[in-house]
Every structure is written in C-alpha cells, then in structure tokens.
C-alpha cells in the first residue's frame, strides 16, 4: 500500500483493498475477528493503565491532604527537628533521619550475611541440603512483621540490653555511636530487626541470580586452575553483580516501608542522636501511631506530608540504586558499542 501510494508510477502489486473486495465471497471463510483475544488484550491493557495511574492518584491525594502543612511550614518542614502536636510544632527531620539511618544500617548488616548465604546455597552447599535450606530461608520472608516485632521485644531487646550493648560500649565506647544508656530498644534494635527481615529477601533473590550464571562460566575458571572461591570471585560474582544490586534494592524497599516491627522496637521518640543506643522514630511508625488519634487538621496534614516524603525518600533511594545498576550496564554497553563501531569500520 505504502509503495503504491508513494510511487504510483511503478507497476502496482495487487492492492490489498481490491483483494478484500473481490475475495469476499471466495475468501470469506478465512476472514474473522478473534473476540477472545481482543477482550484479553483490552482487559490486560486496563490493568496496566491502573498500575500506572494508581501511584499518580495516590500522589495527588497525598499532596492535596498535605496542603495545609505545606503552606504552613514550607520547606522548613524538612529540616525542623521539633515534633510537638500539642504546641502545633511539626518538623519531619527526626523521622526522615530514623527511617534512612535504620534502613541503611540494616542494609549494612544484612548484605554481607545475605551474600554469604546466597553464595553458600548456590555454590558450596551439598546438593541434598540446597532445597531444604533454600525453603527455610524463603519461609523467613513469609513471617508477618508483627511476629518479628513480638520476637524482637521478648528476645532481642533483653539480649541487646544485657549483652550486646554493654559489650559494644566496653570495646568501642570511644565511638559516639556506641555511647549512652543501654536500653535495648532504639536505633540499633530497629536496624537489627530490619536486617533480620530483609536477609531472606536479598539472599533468596541473589541465590536465584547466582544460579542463573551458566555452568560454562564456572567450568572456564575451574579448568584454569581456580579454587572454588576464586571461581566465585572472578567468574560468578562479576556476572551476577547487577542482579544482586537489584536484590539489595528490593531489600531496601522492604526496610524503608516496614512499620510494625520497627515501631515495636525503635522507642518512638522523635530525637536525632548520634548514638545507636538511643531511641528514635521512623516515618512509617509515626503515621501508624498518630494518625488515628490526630484531631487537629494541621496534625493530620503534617502526617500526610510525612507519607508524601516517605514516598519521595523511597523513590530517591530507588532511583539512586537503579542508577548504580544501570551504571554497571552502561559500562558494559559502552564496551560493546565501541567494539561494534570498530569492527564496522
């Protein structure tokens, strides 16, 4: 059709239109519409649009609900450290601090353990143990967070208070982060419970990523006289790098949004402190704790703005991590692109 329209002078192939007209009787049996396919196409399409629209709608709703707080406090809301509903002082910094620090600290604790676990499960563990161990590590991801919180209060907090914190204070007490009273609950407890909760997520995805590295890569290294560790280090991990970063992002997401377990052990005090022993608070916790009892409009609006900020923090940290991942991919793409250029020269 296109060629016929663009260059009418050339000899036309039989145009599809005339084919359809002439062939109607003869070819009718071959024409038809697949209604099932069409319906399927449009329903799935609708779901896809919903997925796109939902976060935008939420964002709009949150912005509308935060209007009072935004106009009242302006950008100072982000840096103000006072949170006092009675005196109507609202600053979000302690909550942002609590969420970001507890999540990053949780990553710091969880990533080495998860990677170790993933490497063990995929590379070193005897075949017979692989399935049951993998199953258990996935089971840990399925435990509801309130159960983790419960365990945290009755087992982890006393242990932190009586053993871990005194030991840390004794050996590393010269560091400001290990000073202060050993209470059990606080920033350290929140980071630890988050770490325990995200290890299964990061470990099981990383294990799948490592399993996806073809055995030919391992054999290439082994045949060159690599030990198991050298094989993992030089042949397996480099190929799995971006996938493992993806797993870490998912773990980070879980940590950033986790509410129940954190609020049960963090102490719920909106204070910024250098010490990990001190109580803290988090964005998700303060919303869960105060929204129901908030009576003043400005209080509700401030909480809504914190929700908006949590959205923002998660987005920024995700984009940052994704940028890291794509950096790895970009470098790889650059290499192949330059090679293609050279070979085509």
């Amino acid at each position, binding site marked *: 059709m296109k060629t016929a329209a663009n260059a009418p002078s050339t000899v036309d192939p039989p145009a599809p239109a005339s084919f359809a007209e002439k062939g109607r009787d003869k070819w009718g049996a071959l024409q038809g519409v697949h209604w099932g396919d069409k319906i399927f196409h449009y329903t799935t399409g609708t779901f896809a649009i919903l997925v796109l629209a939902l976060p935008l709608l939420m964002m709009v709703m949150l912005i509308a609900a935060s209007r009072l707080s935004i106009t009242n406090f302006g950008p100072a809301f982000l840096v103000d450290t006072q949170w006092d509903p009675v005196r109507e002082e609202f600053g979000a910094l302690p909550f942002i601090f609590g969420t970001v620090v507890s999540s990053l600290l949780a990553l710091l604790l969880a990533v080495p353990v998860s990677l170790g676990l993933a490497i063990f499960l995929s590379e070193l563990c005897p075949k017979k143990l692989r399935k049951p161990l993998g199953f258990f590590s996935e089971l840990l991801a399925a435990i509801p967070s309130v159960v983790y919180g419960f365990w945290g209060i009755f087992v982890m907090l006393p242990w932190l208070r009586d053993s871990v914190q005194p030991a840390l204070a004794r050996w590393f007490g010269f560091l400001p982060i290990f000073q202060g009273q050993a209470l059990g609950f606080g920033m350290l407890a929140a980071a630890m419970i988050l770490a325990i909760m995200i290890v299964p997520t990061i470990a099981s995805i990383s294990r799948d990523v490592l399993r996806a590295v073809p055995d030919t890569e391992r054999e290439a*290294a082994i045949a*060159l006289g690599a030990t198991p560790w050298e094989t993992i280090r030089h042949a397996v991990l480099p*190929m799995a790098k971006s996938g493992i970063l993806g797993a870490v992002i998912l773990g980070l997401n879980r940590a950033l949004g986790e509410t129940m377990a954190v609020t049960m052990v963090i102490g719920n005090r909106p204070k910024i402190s250098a010490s990990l022993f001190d109580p803290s608070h988090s964005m998700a916790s303060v919303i869960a704790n105060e929204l129901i009892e908030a009576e003043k409009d400005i209080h509700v609006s401030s909480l809504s703005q914190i929700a908006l900020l949590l959205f923002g923090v998660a987005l920024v940290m995700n984009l940052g991590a994704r940028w890291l991942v794509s950096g790895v991919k970009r470098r790889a793409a650059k290499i192949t692109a*330059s090679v293609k250029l050279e070979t085509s020269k």
Partner: protein
Amino acid sequence: MMQSNLPAPSQLPARIVVEDLNAYFGGAHALHHITAQIPDKKLTAIIGPSGCGKSTFLRCLNRMHELVAGARVSGRVVMDDIDIYDKRVDPVRLRRRVGMVFQKPNPFPTMSIRENVLAGLTLNGIRPKDADAIVQHTLERVALWTEVKDKLHNSGTSLSGGQQQRLCIARVLAVQPSVILLDEPCSALDPIATARIEELFAELKNEYTLVMVTHNMQQAARVSDYTAFFYMGDLVELDTTQRIFTNPKVSKTEEYVTGRFG
C-alpha cells in the same frame, strides 16, 4: 596431513598413561576399564559416536569429572610418574598444568581481551610484572595479536567465534600447561575459522601434548597423529591416525570411520 611413518603409540614416550580407568555418573558406568598411552607432544584425536564417553574421558584427565554431583572415578592416570588421582594431588594445581578448551568459546564476558589472556594468572593470584609482554606473546602465539592489539580493553565476547576460541586457547597457554585438552573446539565455528585453528594446533603440538575430542572424522584425519576410537564407554582402538583410518585392527572401528554407523 597424515603422517605415514609414525610408530605405534606405546613405542613413544608417553605424556599420560591411563590404567584401568573407570568413570561413573552415580550408578551409570560411563567408561569401562580404559587403558591407554597418550604420546608426548603429539595430537591425539578422540572419536566415536555421540554419548560414547569422549568428553567424560577428557574430563578424567584434568579431574573435572569429579565436579559432577555423584560422579566417581577408579583406576590410575599417570603423568610424570604421579598418579593424578593420588590423595596427595591437589586438583586445582593439576588443572594449571592440564589446560582445557571447550566446545563453545567461553571467554569471561566481564573481562577485557587483555584480562582474559591473563585470567589464568589472575585467578591463581599471580600479577606478573611483564604482563604486557605475556599478553602480546601469547596472542601472537594464537595468531590473534594483529587483529586485537588496538582493542585489548574491549570485552572478550565482542570478538567473532573463531577469535574467541583462539582467545580461550591463549588464556590456556598463558598458564604454561604441558597438556591441552580440547573438547570439540571447532564444532561451533565456520570452516574458515576451523582451518585457522587447525593450523594453530599443528604448531602447538611441537610444544604441547594435545588431546582433542572431535565429531568430525575429516578433522581427525587432517590434524591428528594418533586416534582413539571410543564406543559405548569402551576404548576400542588407539593407534596412529593413518592406521585407524586405513587399516584398523577392529572391524567396529572400520565400520565407524567408513561411516556405516554413528
């Protein structure tokens, strides 16, 4: 070309002596009582129908067979008067002296061409001072230097299949092995790339003992000095390539090389 006046394999100094070697995958007995002598600095081809145990035999020579879960070996494989299956032998160190090239070229995709050449050394924790010289010399050895000298920092996987395979051979040569095992090294390559690799083998066998599994009987006839014919886990016959292809002792061998089965 087929050399016509080579002595029988047992009359030459042997690089590898295989005595009553059995290989198992779990309960499956894949190689039965193999006894053979692989002559030093010659190219020995291993032929036989698919599934007859050629790869398994090769992987018994650098102890890669035991990496498969449930796999087991009995018997002796002697190199330099040492049984490589002796408890005291470290398979990791053995594999630095017995290199291996695989069917599908497998340069490390995350490494550059240069890093690939040096991979065997890096993996073993060696950081040679004259790395540049090693890279150049090794790549010259596999006739790849002029083609890649201006893009040593590009990815190894950016090369053509034949170039990648030569890079993999360079990677093995850099570790300075004495034996190189080749498992159908040309079966993923086009005829021109195959011809170039075959030329390379003809040169390498002056310095190295080469053992090459091949599916292609013309190739075995073209490049090898000795040929071993495997059939259903048995070593049927090992002799000079000329004898195997023109006047084998066992009728099964003749049936196979004349294309009556397989």
